[in-house]
């Protein structure tokens, strides 16, 4: 093990799946998600020794990920954000329903602002506390609360989502 990478490999192995799933909810595309996770980890690695000791690596890497994603969006490096992605890999179960869920969630998330989307994904999907989300986004806890409220309200109004919720199709 080289200096400065203590636990890095283990962290990547243990967390890559969860990070990629979060990244997919942010980007709506598996290739972009993979790219985003790799970029965030590559940015964290040179400072790993410090992160491991001083910060919560999980929070740090997620912060790197969200910030990178926000930058991508600002820069429009990636052109239009894809939506309604083609299902990836083998999908067991009811393929049509799965695709419907994926497309609906993706489109609905796409209607949120970047910040609303990030707060929602981190708070609801990753189950981070409000304080952790604030730390990740570098904003106040109050901002997390109000952004979260607006994001949820917006999703609730979305007929695609409310219909899925009622049927509990998943």
């Amino acid at each position, binding site marked *: 093990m080289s200096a400065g990478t203590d636990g890095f490999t283990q962290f990547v192995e243990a967390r890559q799946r969860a990070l990629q799933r979060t990244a997919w909810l942010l980007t709506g595309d*598996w290739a972009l998600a993979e790219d985003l996770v*790799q970029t965030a980890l590559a940015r*964290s690695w040179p400072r790993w*020794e410090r992160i491991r000791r001083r910060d919560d690596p999980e929070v740090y890497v997620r912060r790197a990920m969200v910030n990178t994603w926000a930058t991508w969006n600002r820069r429009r490096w990636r052109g239009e954000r894809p939506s309604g992605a083609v299902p990836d890999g083998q999908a067991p179960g009811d393929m049509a329903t799965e695709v419907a869920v994926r497309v609906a969630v993706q489109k609905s998330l796409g209607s949120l602002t970047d910040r609303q989307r990030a707060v929602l994904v981190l708070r609801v999907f990753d189950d981070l506390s409000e304080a952790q989300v604030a730390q990740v986004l570098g904003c106040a806890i109050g901002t997390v609360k109000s952004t979260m409220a607006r994001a949820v309200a917006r999703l609730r109004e979305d007929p695609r989502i409310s219909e899925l919720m009622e049927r*509990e199709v*998943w």
Partner: protein
Amino acid sequence: MDRQLRDLLDAAAGEPPHRVTAETVLRRAARRRAKYLAGAAAVAVIAVVAVVAVITAGIPAPGHPPRPSAARQPRATVYVYTPAGTVTAIDPATNTHGKPVKLRAGLGAIAVTPDGQTVYVADNVVGFRSGQVIPIDTATSTAGKPINVGMAPDAIAITPDGKTAYVACSFSMTVTPIDTATNTAGKPINVGMAPDVIAITPDGKTAYVVNSGSGNVTPIDTATNTAGKHIGVGTGPDAIAITPDGKTAYVVNYSTGGNLNAGTVTAIDTATNTREKFIHVGTEASAIAITPDGETAYVANKGSNTVTPIDTATNTPGTPIKVGNGPTAIAITPDGKTAYVVNVFSGTVTPIDTATNTPGTPIKVGSEPVAIAITPDGKTAYVGDNSPGNTIIPIDTATNTAGQPVNDGGRDTPVIVITP
């Protein structure tokens, strides 16, 4: 709603088609660095959250009327930088603060010129741009034009003559010299991996850059701004202090030879830039301070809840001094009589009598103190607290009692520095 929504998001996310491996990430990190060094990438890095306070001499706090004449006694000012992007000046005479200077949110490091006229703030957080250093005129409390530096500027040190500020950029693995007369950046100097700390010798001839990632130290000749040969130290070195006579640099190694329970200190002879054998201290050694007479170096061992005094004449460690839980910062009064140790997990500061190396009664300061700085007159020690509603707590060093906290206007982690 949240539960249901969570299940919905969970169902939508599905399974990633590929695994991300550490190997691909490391390859990519290497490419990123190569690209950056070639000057091709304009993308910067990340956030280490810290509140940094600097105490300067002779500067009026913002909000105060300008000094009527030079005849008035100069007084110190405490500058606090928070991740919210505010720089706040606290007047130690009244412990009140002026209107904060607002920068973009971020955090890196803060340093002040020896004449107290300019505070340099390194900002490494928002938007992954290249790092920036912002000069703040302390007389008017106005921010000057940002100076672009490398990625993730994590440390700044200014030469004793005040002419050059050296900025260590953790991700780009470079040090950028800034000419303080013109506030322009010079050519970046390549150093080791994750340079996080810098110290300059009292004669100003050498800047020692601690590379926490690669476990070595790069000496930079300040006359030519060229890097010398790396000096190997331990694993995860993260603190450095130079004796007042400039002869020895002490580097604190978090661990040694892969043994996480073996904090050590490496003494570097600054005349030859060679290291001496490891001085063994406690677990998770993380901070160091040297007495003004240069006779003793005190090392805080975060993991073993002790402070190890090192006799600098023989480089031998003394009996560890028991302090609170998680000693993480240390500062010594200008008269050298007391070392104040910040215990992050106990929320206390332990004063150590340096004549006898005995700890005094811990002083309760906050819930998560992480930094300390002492005013030049030695009367007040300012402790930065990391807990919600972040505050700076003044300790009266005559009575060792904590005063009313001063709100620094920010959130998150403090680190504190001091000017001569």
